[in-house]
């Protein structure tokens, strides 16, 4: 990972986590984890500096949301089902992106998670060494958050913002100019 993220105080993360747990599907999601507070070269952030999506009135999505749609359906879809809807055995990640705090979401994707017992054989692998996932973590996260918030319908986003040079440079650097 070549990109760095600003650390936030633990107390703040905890309070966000609690708020997040309360949020169910659709519009009941906490707005402060969704509303765009600032833009940085084609990336959008909340007031708490958490990545978020932006969807214009005509349905144009930000580049990361579009890119997240693609990466999700390459890396996550084979277990978690189309468009974050969940499968017969893996959870609907469109809800996880709303219910889990951003940093908890990153933790699960990076380090994995196991629920193995008599009733369940549920294992999320650690993607920490997978560039195809880690270089697009924010993309996948904001896409799923857009889906879970009810702001983005199923299907391929029809219109998207252009890919900014900053996003392109970060991608190349992360992938090692692959």
């Amino acid at each position, binding site marked *: 990972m070549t990109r760095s993220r600003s650390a936030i105080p633990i107390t703040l993360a905890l309070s966000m986590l609690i708020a997040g747990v309360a949020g169910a599907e659709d519009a009941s999601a906490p707005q402060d984890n969704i509303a765009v507070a600032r833009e940085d070269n084609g990336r959008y952030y909340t007031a708490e500096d958490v990545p978020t999506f932006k969807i214009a009135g005509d349905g144009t999505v930000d580049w990361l949301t579009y890119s997240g749609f693609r990466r999700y359906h390459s890396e996550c879809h*084979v*277990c978690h089902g189309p468009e974050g809807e969940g*499968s017969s*055995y893996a959870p609907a990640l469109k809800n996880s992106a709303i219910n889990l705090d951003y940093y908890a979401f990153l933790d699960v994707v990076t380090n994995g998670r196991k629920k193995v017992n008599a009733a369940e054989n549920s*294992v999320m*692998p650690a*993607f920490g060494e*997978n560039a*195809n996932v880690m270089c697009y973590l924010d993309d996948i996260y904001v896409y799923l958050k857009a889906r879970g918030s009810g702001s983005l*319908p199923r299907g391929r986003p029809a219109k998207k913002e252009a890919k900014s040079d900053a996003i392109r440079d970060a991608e190349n650097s992360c992938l090692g100019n692959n």
Partner: protein
Amino acid sequence: MAQADTGERGDRKVSPGGLMALIGSTQEEDEMKRLLTLLALTSIGGAQVALANSDLQKQIDDPNQWAIQTGDYANLRYSKLDQINKENVGKLQVAWTFSTGVLRGHEGAPLVIGDIMYVHTPFPNTVYALDLSKDGQIIWKYEPKQDPNVIPVMCCDTVNRGVAYADNKIFLHQADTTVVALDAKTGKVIWNVKNGDPSKGETNTATVMPVKDKVIVGISGGEFGVRGSVTAYSMADGKLLWRGYSMGPDSDTLMDPEKTTHLGKPVGKDSGLTTWEGDQWKIGGGTTWGWYAYDPEQNLVYYGSGNPSTWNPTQRPGDNRWSMTIWARDVDTGMAKWVYQMTPHDEWDYDGVNEMILTDQKFDGKDRRLLTHFDRNGFGYTLDRVSGELLVAEKYDPKVNWATEVNMDPKSDQYGRPQVVAQYSTEQNGEDTNSTGICPAALGSKDQQPAAYSPKTELFYVPTNHVCMDYEPFRVSYTAGQPYVGATLSMYPPKDSHGGMGNFIAWDNKEGKIKWSLPEPFSVWSGALATAGDVVFYGTLEGYLKAVDAATGKELYRFKTPSGVIGNVMTYARGDKQYVAVLSGVGGWAGIGLAAGLTNPNEGLGAVGGYSALSNYTALGGTLTVFALPD
């Protein structure tokens, strides 16, 4: 044959001789040929070799049993039992049930040998031996210890397609690629061997095929850059006897540049290397997780290899031989006699793993040894299984559009190649371009769910998918043990069709034509069973077991089992009663793609038809349901 004394039950009385007459002379001749072949083998081969082989063949030939997952070595999935027939199947009732205790997708079927039924489960791959003479009491249970880290390395759920039997042993091929031989009477481990490395994405979902003194074993992991192979282990002790890879130098693929043929011509030196760029073949896919077939007369084992890795065709220039290929290998040496690559340089994930069904039929007035294969790419192929000559290649779903036809002119440089439509070529459209409206979708017009064949009708009964897709390939990097996919897909039912995502069809392999087609709301992901009672059985994703008339497709019976059916229907008899059994337990690829429903193109972009969500019909849970006629 236990069926001989069923006359008192009000059903048609059938004697073994009468049964043979019903089946017709072709089948009778087949039986005779098989017997003669076995006799020949017995006299030529060593005593041990012949014993193991002829013992399993004997078990398979007893229609009261279900001794091999595929019904027989020819993959017919046809039973000579006829107590349950098209006149009385409507009266079928549930005789007994068994919960497997596992929630994930249940593929494959139980075996019945003698008094014992062997039932398997998805991960953790538990095996139960049930005593049918004591109301299904559990004789033994085997649950292997496996590292749960194998679970997420399995593409598309933790399914397992069942155990195999031979030589008083039960063979289980676990998710983590451990092949274990259990004592069939006690469940005690006799030997085990590791066929692959799950930390590199090598896993298993398939059954194994016992042949002669060997157990033939495949591997999964095409979405993780695994290089596919088929391996023969010694049935007695698990020793590795030969391994043939799907790509690489001739010493790896077990090909002879002169003697191994592709459509009648020698393959040439290192064909599994020269059709790849650089070292891409080392992570080239072509995995081998389908149902295998065996022809004792030819001493050949038949199977298909899967997609080349990655799903982004631009990253692997060349024909990518021998992914997407029908293989015929010598059982004793592993040497490839002939191959046929159906989809050179795959651009759609049309794995070639589906089963090869071996029949002896008249073709153009001549007796031919045929091989019929319903490929994921939507073409139904008929070949001469001795020579590998291509006889028929026709679409078995009229919506298939990625290719216009397969070139059938031996003089053409395109001979045997699908004629790709540029609009649907994800290679020609290029990386980062979304190709839309491609039919079939990546799961194919049919996936592993095996078809059945009735020698009485000479028809194939095929469970199919009726799904199209958008496909956008993009560049990915390879990390061992991590997904190596490189494409974004979205899937939906075909436009201007019946709105459902599946059909159950009857296919004529000589004409290459659909005889009848039953629309289904979901992909039909259950293996079919044809019987001498003129009935064909299959399961549906909502959970129905259905029985239809083998001649017309008319529905004769349906029963809703506890969960969606992705298992294969089997039949057996005890005393004077015929039973039909199927595992339900929704999951697999079908459970992933359809659980929440697909987007529906008829309702505009992004809209979802509520009817299409499988989760509205069924929930998880593995149960065996066994049916019989009332007393």
